[in-house]
Structures are given as C-alpha cells and as structure tokens.
C-alpha cells in the first residue's frame, strides 16, 4: 500500500468519488470493477515513487488516466444522471451552489403552500452558509456567488427587517379592535385621536430605544455581526451604527416632545 501525502490523498478521494458517480450512470459496465482497476492502475504507476507521494506526482498519474467523463460516452448516460453527477461529484463549493439554487427555486415555487416553501428556502440558506464555510475565503467563490447569494440575501433582508421594525408590529394588535377596549377602560383618552397619538408616541419611543440598543450592539461586538450576516457584514461600517443610534435618539426625543406638547394641558 502506497502512502500518500494529505493533499494527494484528498485529490485521490475526489477523483475516485467523481469516477464512481459517473460510472454508476452507465448500465453497460460494472462501476465497482472499473474503480478497482483504476485503483490498481494508480498503485502500479506510483510504485517506486518517493513516499509519501506528493500531490503533483499523483496528479500527473490522474492526468494520464483522464477525466471519468472521457471514459463513458455521454449518450450512455441519462440527462437526469448527468445532473445528479454534477451534484454528487462536483467540487464541494459547486455542489452546494447547485443544491442551494435548486432548493431556493423549489422554495419560491412552493411559497403559496407554506410552510413547505419556507422550509425549502431555509434549507437553501443553510446550503449557502455551508458553501461559505467550505470556502476559506468567500472572495474565492466566483461564479458560485450567483447561486449562493440569492437565498442569503432573502433571509438576511427578512432578519434585518424583523430586527429593525419588530416594535412597529405592536401597532397591529392596537389597530385590531383593542383601541376601543382601551378607550373604554381609560379615562385619560377623550377621543380616538388621543388614543392614537399616545399609542404611536409610545411605540415610536420604544422603536427609538430599540434602535439605540441595536446600534450599540452593532458598534461593539462586530464579530457577532460577522457571524450572523456572513459575508455581507464586512460591508457594514461603524458610521451606519452611529446613524442608527442618532435616528433612535431623534425618535425618542420626538416622541417625548410630542407627548409633552400634546398633554401639557393635562399635566
């Protein structure tokens, strides 16, 4: 048994996986037998080479063996096998890119039948994140970005929207009939306008406070931001957090000011 270097071993594993996947698509041959012959061929070719065998030496042998796609005529393979082959045997970053895009398209098509669509989009997001983890540097992903980034952008935009605007969601139950109950139970509100000015002021003040907290979190633990919104967090600048902080403060002041101005007569 010949000892291979770590990188040569990985190269051989990738090659044999690719060969196995491709050969299994042809019914006219025995994939296991061919794989065994290929392995023997490699061992024979490497006999006498300095051990551990380097990747360069191994790659020269693999180059002479050729790509498994050259071994079996394409017409012997069905179209669906060719797609499966690309998914199963392509380099990891491409495989995950194909999976991510397929899941996203399926998710968007299934969206009317929630939760299946949402689950598929989340699965696509996870595949994209896995591809990012696989790549040492996201900048290494070139064309794959077009397959990986759509699901990331969709999920990140949703998360961002929820993070920024969830306090506004409190307006929904207030508008949904609760105002009458509140107006009846509170003598402070003379009419509906009073009620709404109070409710909106309180919620905007809450929103302002939340944005201030969010801005401080964004300013300090940048690492958390990088992990959560990889790889786009790199584009976020400190000045954005400062702007969010200032807007938050402005909202709080505006709400407090409105309350004071409106209720000064009562006070």
């Amino acid at each position, binding site marked *: 048994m010949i000892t291979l270097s770590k990188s040569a071993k990985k190269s051989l594993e990738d090659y044999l996986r690719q060969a196995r996947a491709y050969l299994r698509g042809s019914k006219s041959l025995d994939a296991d037998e061919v794989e065994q*012959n290929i392995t023997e061929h490699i061992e024979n070719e490497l006999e006498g080479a300095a051990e551990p065998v380097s990747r360069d030496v191994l790659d020269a042998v693999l180059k002479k063996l*050729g790509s498994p796609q050259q071994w079996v005529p394409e017409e012997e393979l069905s179209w669906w096998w060719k797609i499966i082959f690309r998914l199963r045997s392509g380099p990891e970053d491409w495989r995950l890119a194909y999976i991510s895009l397929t899941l996203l398209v399926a998710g968007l098509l299934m969206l009317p039948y929630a939760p299946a669509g949402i689950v598929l989009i989340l699965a696509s997001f996870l595949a994209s994140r896995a591809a990012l983890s696989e790549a040492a540097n996201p900048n290494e992903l070139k064309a794959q970005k077009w397959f990986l980034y759509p699901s990331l952008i969709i999920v990140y935009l949703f998360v961002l929207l929820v993070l920024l605007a969830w306090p506004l969601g409190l307006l929904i139950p207030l508008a949904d009939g609760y105002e009458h109950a509140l107006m009846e139970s509170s003598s402070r509100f003379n009419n509906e306008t009073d009620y709404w000015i109070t409710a909106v002021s309180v919620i905007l003040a809450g929103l302002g406070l939340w944005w201030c907290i969010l801005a401080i979190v964004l300013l300090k633990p940048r690492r958390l931001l990088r992990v959560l919104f990889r790889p786009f967090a790199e584009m976020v600048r400190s000045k954005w957090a400062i702007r969010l902080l200032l807007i938050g403060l402005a909202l709080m002041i505006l709400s407090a000011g409105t309350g004071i101005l409106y209720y000064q007569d009562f006070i």
Partner: protein
Amino acid sequence: MDAKFFDNWTNQLRKGVLELCILNDIRNRKMYGYEIVRRLRKIEGLIISEGAIYPILSRLKRQGLVETSIQESPDGPARKYYKLTKQGEEMVSQMNAYWQAISGATDSIEKG
C-alpha cells in the same frame, strides 16, 4: 473548423479501434488491466485517457466477449486477468476480417 472536424473524426475512429486492439491484445494470452494499458499506450494516438480502457474491459465482460479470473501475483495483491471467451474469439475474428477488408479498400481508393 478543420481541427475540430479532425478531432471528431479521430474520436469516432479511435473508439472502435481501441476495442479491437484490446480484444486482439488478449487474444493469445490472458492479461491484467494495467498490463493491457501499458502495451496499448505505446501505440501513438490510440489512447487519449488511459482510464478509458477499464470501462471498455468491463463492458466487454458484460457483453460476454471477455471473462476474468483472479490470480495471485508475486509483486503484490491478486490480479484480475482478462481473456477472450469463445464468443469473444468469434467476434474478434469477424472484426479483424472486417478491419482488413475496410483497410484494404481504403488503401486501394487512396492509391487510385
């Protein structure tokens, strides 16, 4: 355009000729896969990727033209030897005759 045409033509021709060469190679004695590759790679232009020989051997076996036997090797693990079956011998005889006829006819046309 000419180069592409030539590549396509040689690819089509090579596929059939490679099968004929493999069958002829094991006609007189059984051989193991790597041994066949080593012999055939000496023929210039016949093999583009050496790995292509193994799927052909497997396909020929499935078609019943060759059969295999495992034999101990003094140099290492046991080897799988390929040899022609009776059906394979008949087939290679027919193929050789056809090849001779085509080759002869092509030569005579070329010479005018």
